[in-house]
């Protein structure tokens, strides 16, 4: 039902295909099922012919009966009616069955292609487009496409029926046919006008309903506040107003929708009256037979329903093409990260060299310019700096999530562009701020990176984190269900699981984005102990937010606008009283256990905040 929003949700990678190109592309997907589609085409035509035959036969029957009655003629007619009814049903059956099979397969292929295309994108794609929209392209747009194909097949058969009957009527009596066709434009115009009105009222109704729902959502989320302050009455009063307004708007919409069929029925009824009168006159004047008179009366009721669907068809058809276009645009978008080789790296030592690298997420704002840095294998490097200094960018480039524009990035002595990416990434361990865990048990989650690991290996990895006592705090130990998106675990527990996953993966290089959110002190202690384990013997790049982490690092790099402005250990840098000392006063001061509000500043070389140094 997304038609209202159509055209508003265009994405940057969208492209316009020519109609011919689009049709060619769609036909390409139908090629593997062309046998089924040919069958569908035949049954559509045959079914419509049978549906047309039925009223014609009855009309002939009436003529025969009103002139001379013979049992023979009646028997032939009866057999004819039975045959046309049965065959019509049979053709319809075959059409529906084979179109379901064909469409099902086409959509499956389309979905697989779209999903493979999604997986092939680099991270810049996921940064730009919200996951909900990507999902809806892969599943909903393809579904809409399927609906429209099925709908089109239905409509083609209905349209054929109308066309065939009109031809038959025209042959029998052109004048009366034109009279009967008089109602056609009226019905189409009414149906189109209805769509217009329905669209605006639906929009309003939906908005009104959304406001009730959001009010209920808000008050149920805030119920504890309302209750502890005893404010039920005031929020109920507001609810009543909004609920009443939604009722009024939705009622109006409902009336519009339920008014349409009686209106169309009335028009069809007037058409019937016209045909009865003028047809009757012709029969009286012997210019028409009673049978054809009957046929015309019947035609009105056969006509009007397909006419209403034809009126709404064009916009739905365009929607279907639009859906197909969106899916193809997704499939055709080109990834920005391009590999030049497929080198399978041996076990890496973990030496990282940035050699005069230029990088920006977009052309306008360069993040790194002429950036050079060497990290020896096994070193723990803490990156500190204000937001936007480029801390996380370094990690993302090492993970090869983004393409850089200039310079070289070497891992050990390999150019990062020469690697087979999956093989390289198996030697990278990445722990983001809020670690993402797939639904499943804790065991399954830890095993994710190495599906072949045994239960014993998983358990051993888990036990190495924080002494393993965090597992006892889980309701069912390692068999605890993590729940959708990791909701079953606290943030701290998710970090512990992510660390265990990392230990099992055993990467050479570790990229860790420390959480800013606070974690209860006991879990925090377990995480810190787990970090000791994870950092040992690996090159580690830590985007540091915790005082304990910067203290522990072998080397701290202070970043500012993509440049390294200071480096050294915690104590060296504090003693220097420069940028790091300023950052300490801004971000780390309050993390000391001896912190008192407004105190704990360290001395900096210049600046108004300089106070006599407290403990460090």
């Amino acid at each position, binding site marked *: 039902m997304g038609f209202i929003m159509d055209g508003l949700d265009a994405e940057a990678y969208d492209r316009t295909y020519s109609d011919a190109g689009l049709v060619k592309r769609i036909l390409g997907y139908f090629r593997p099922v062309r046998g089924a589609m040919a069958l569908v085409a035949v049954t559509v035509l045959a079914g419509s012919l049978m549906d047309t035959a039925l009223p014609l036969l009855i009309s002939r029957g009436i003529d025969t009966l009103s002139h001379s009655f013979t049992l023979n003629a009646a028997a032939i007619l009866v057999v004819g009616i039975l045959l046309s009814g049965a065959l019509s049903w049979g053709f319809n059956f075959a059409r529906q069955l084979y179109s379901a099979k064909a469409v099902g397969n086409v959509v499956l292929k389309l979905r697989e292609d779209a999903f493979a295309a999604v997986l092939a994108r680099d991270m810049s794609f996921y940064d730009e487009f919200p996951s909900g929209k990507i999902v809806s392209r892969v599943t909903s747009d393809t579904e809409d496409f399927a609906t429209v194909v099925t709908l089109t097949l239905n409509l083609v058969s209905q349209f054929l029926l109308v066309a065939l009957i009109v031809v038959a009527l025209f042959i029998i009596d052109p004048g009366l046919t034109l009279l009967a066709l008089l109602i056609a434009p009226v019905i189409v115009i009414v149906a189109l006008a209805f769509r217009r009105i329905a669209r605006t009222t639906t929009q309003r109704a939906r908005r009104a309903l959304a406001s009730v729902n959001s009010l209920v*959502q808000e008050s*149920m989320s805030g119920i504890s506040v309302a209750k*502890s302050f005893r404010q039920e009455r005031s929020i109920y009063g507001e609810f009543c107003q909004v609920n009443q307004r939604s009722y009024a708007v939705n009622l109006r919409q409902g009336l519009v929708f339920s008014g349409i069929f009686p209106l169309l029925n009335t028009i069809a009824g007037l058409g019937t009256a016209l045909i009865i009168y003028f047809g*009757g006159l012709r029969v009286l004047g012997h210019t028409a037979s009673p049978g054809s008179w009957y046929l015309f009366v019947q035609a009105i009721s056969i006509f009007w329903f397909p006419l209403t669907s034809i009126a709404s068809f064009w916009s739905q058809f365009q929607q279907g093409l639009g859906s197909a276009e969106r899916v193809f645009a997704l499939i055709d978008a080109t990834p920005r990260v391009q590999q030049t080789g497929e080198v399978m790296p041996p076990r890496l030592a973990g030496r990282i060299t940035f050699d005069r690298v230029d990088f920006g997420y977009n052309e306008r704002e360069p993040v790194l310019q002429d950036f050079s840095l060497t990290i020896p294998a096994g070193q723990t490097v803490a990156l500190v700096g204000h937001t936007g200094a480029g801390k996380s960018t370094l990690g993302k480039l090492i993970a090869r999530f983004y393409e850089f524009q200039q310079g070289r990035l070497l891992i050990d002595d390999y150019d990062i562009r020469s690697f087979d990416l999956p093989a390289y*990434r198996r030697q990278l361990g990445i722990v983001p701020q809020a670690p993402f865990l797939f639904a499943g048990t804790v065991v399954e989650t830890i095993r994710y990176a190495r599906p072949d690991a045994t239960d014993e290996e998983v358990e051993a990895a888990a036990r190495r984190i924080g002494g393993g006592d965090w597992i006892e*705090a889980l309701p069912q130990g390692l068999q605890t269900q993590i729940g959708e998106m990791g909701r079953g675990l606290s943030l*701290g527990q998710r970090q512990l699981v992510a660390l265990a996953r990392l230990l099992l993966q055993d990467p050479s290089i570790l990229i860790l984005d420390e959480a800013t959110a606070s974690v209860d002190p006991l879990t925090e202690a377990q995480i810190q102990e787990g970090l000791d384990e994870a950092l040992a013997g690996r090159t580690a790049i830590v985007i540091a937010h915790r*005082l304990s982490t910067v203290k522990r690092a072998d080397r701290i790099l202070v970043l500012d606008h993509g440049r390294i402005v200071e480096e050294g250990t915690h104590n060296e840098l504090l003693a220097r009283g420069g940028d790091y000392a300023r950052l300490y006063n801004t971000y780390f001061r309050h993390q000391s256990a001896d912190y008192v509000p*407004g105190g704990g500043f360290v001395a900096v070389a210049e600046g108004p905040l300089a106070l006599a140094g407290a403990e460090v």
Partner: protein
Amino acid sequence: MVNREFTVASAYTYNRAGPIRWIISHVLRYKVYLLIFAVGTILAQVLTAVVPVLTGNAFSIVLSPHPSASALITITLEIVGIVAALFVVAPAGVFGSEILAQRLERDARDELYLSLLAKSQTYHNQQRVGDIMARATNDVRQLNPMINPGVSLILDSMSSLFIPIIFIGFINPQLLLAPLLFTVGFFFAVWRYTRQLTPVTANMRAQFGEMNAELEETITGIEVVKSTAQEQQEEGKFARNASKYRDFFVKNGAIQARYIPPLLIAIAFVIAFLHGVFLIAQHQLSIGGLIAYMGLMTLLRYPSFISIFTFSLVQLGVAGANRILNVMRQETELDENANGYDEPMRGEIAFEDVSFSYKGIPNIAEGDEPDNTPTSQLGQSEPTFALADITLRIPAGQTVAIVGQTGAGKTTLTRLVNRTYDATSGRVLIDGVDVRDWSLDGLRSQIGAIEQDIFLFSRTIAENIAFGVGAPLGDSSEPAVSREAIEQAAKQAQAHDFIMSFANGYDTVVGERGVTLSGGQRQRLAIARALLTNPRILILDDATSAIDSATEDEIQRALHEVMEGRTTLLITNRLSQIRRADQVVLLRQGRMVAVGSHDELMASSDLYRRIFIRYDGDEKNSKLMQAVAEAMTSANDQADERDHQTVAACG
């Protein structure tokens, strides 16, 4: 009778004995519209059936030996008259059902909302907002299409089936043979069809949801997928899901293709035609009668196309009604206790051998236990109790820091104080009086809570701060508290400066036009809110993390201000606050493993020392680490072979 925390005098009472009775009692509230709906719908079908009869008459006139054009005009005018009447009657019936449907939705939402407001905090804490929202949105919404088009179409198609049959009976009772045979076959076919289709459609929908959910998960976790190079695993998973969906789609199409009523109506037509011709041969039926008969038979097509999905709409509506009723019927076990103890509070709290279990607390989802009720957060050693054997005495005015891991029972402990929950055994006393003997109003109005997720309403900042003292919301009448008092509270909570930095100051609407507040700002607004209500006991769940030290300075000053002179139960992750508290309570899996001042616990508790090990001054730190490490390694036989400093489980 259900205990209620809130009631509205004018509320209409509905029959809640069962979903169908409940729906009927709602609909019967509007008898006039019900009558318009029923009469309008049936009358419309009668009029519709008259048209083929008149058509038959027209044929009789024209085909009679002495045809008259004026009689034809009369018939035509009669038909026009019928159509005109239909133009009035048919909409009346449909409008009647539309009004009933919309009112049912409105009233049911109102009834549910009122009942939710009346339920205790305990109840709400037990429910996930998502579950309640599903009832209040989808289930309530589903009641509307249940009436229109659901019930409305059922009545419509039933009358469009039976009324033509009655008319056929009037033409010649013998002609009833074909339509009655058809009716029997039709009902049987629809029953079979629905039985086959329903499970497949349900599976198809479920599989679509599954496919979407897993895809969403993969994309949200794409960084993990890529960094662990598991693209193939994900592609395989998606292909399996999409193929399963395809199979249901094809199966669904095959069942729909086999829908047999169109074939039945064709056969009925043949029988009818044969029978009519036979009767004509017997001179028991005129050609006009046959035309009318065939016209009426044509009307039977209509129910055969439409009746399938209407029943499922009604089914869905009744199922939704049932879920709504389950929520409304849920007992809430606390009541207002309006005549209970109600004196100014001093703020002395005592837990006497308190245990608490979530068992027996009613739950919205009958049968299926949500995955993460606090019950399941327990360790395996104590499967039933969230808190066990808690004995604790807190003098008025003290600050007690509660420390423990997620699921250790910190929040549960605080919730026993304001009777969000009642202790399963043991007693919680405030000023020496059991909380269950306090009047609920008196108790809660003197206990302030600042939750972990601070909830602000989408209203002005001033209204949010004044919320607790009954400022009428969305109502322009006289406010219960002056602007000066609000500003004073905001200043004390260190919130004034950032509030004034917004263009509209105190009249800034929260959440509107990009006004988003950081966790620290929300917390300070909550503190201002608490300062205005001036509670004696404060429950402070302080998990907010300040990213920079200046914000932390302000939050700490605000907290200091609000804790001053109040008994405070403080759940915090901040080491500096823990160490300055008068008492620290260390919880582990629902049990109190240590209690005392910071210095006492540093001396007595290994678990407590483990927390501070990395944070104290360097000198102290190294010594302490050494000491603890020694204690740990000797206590822990399974020491890590890597010869790495391991701090194992204690306590």
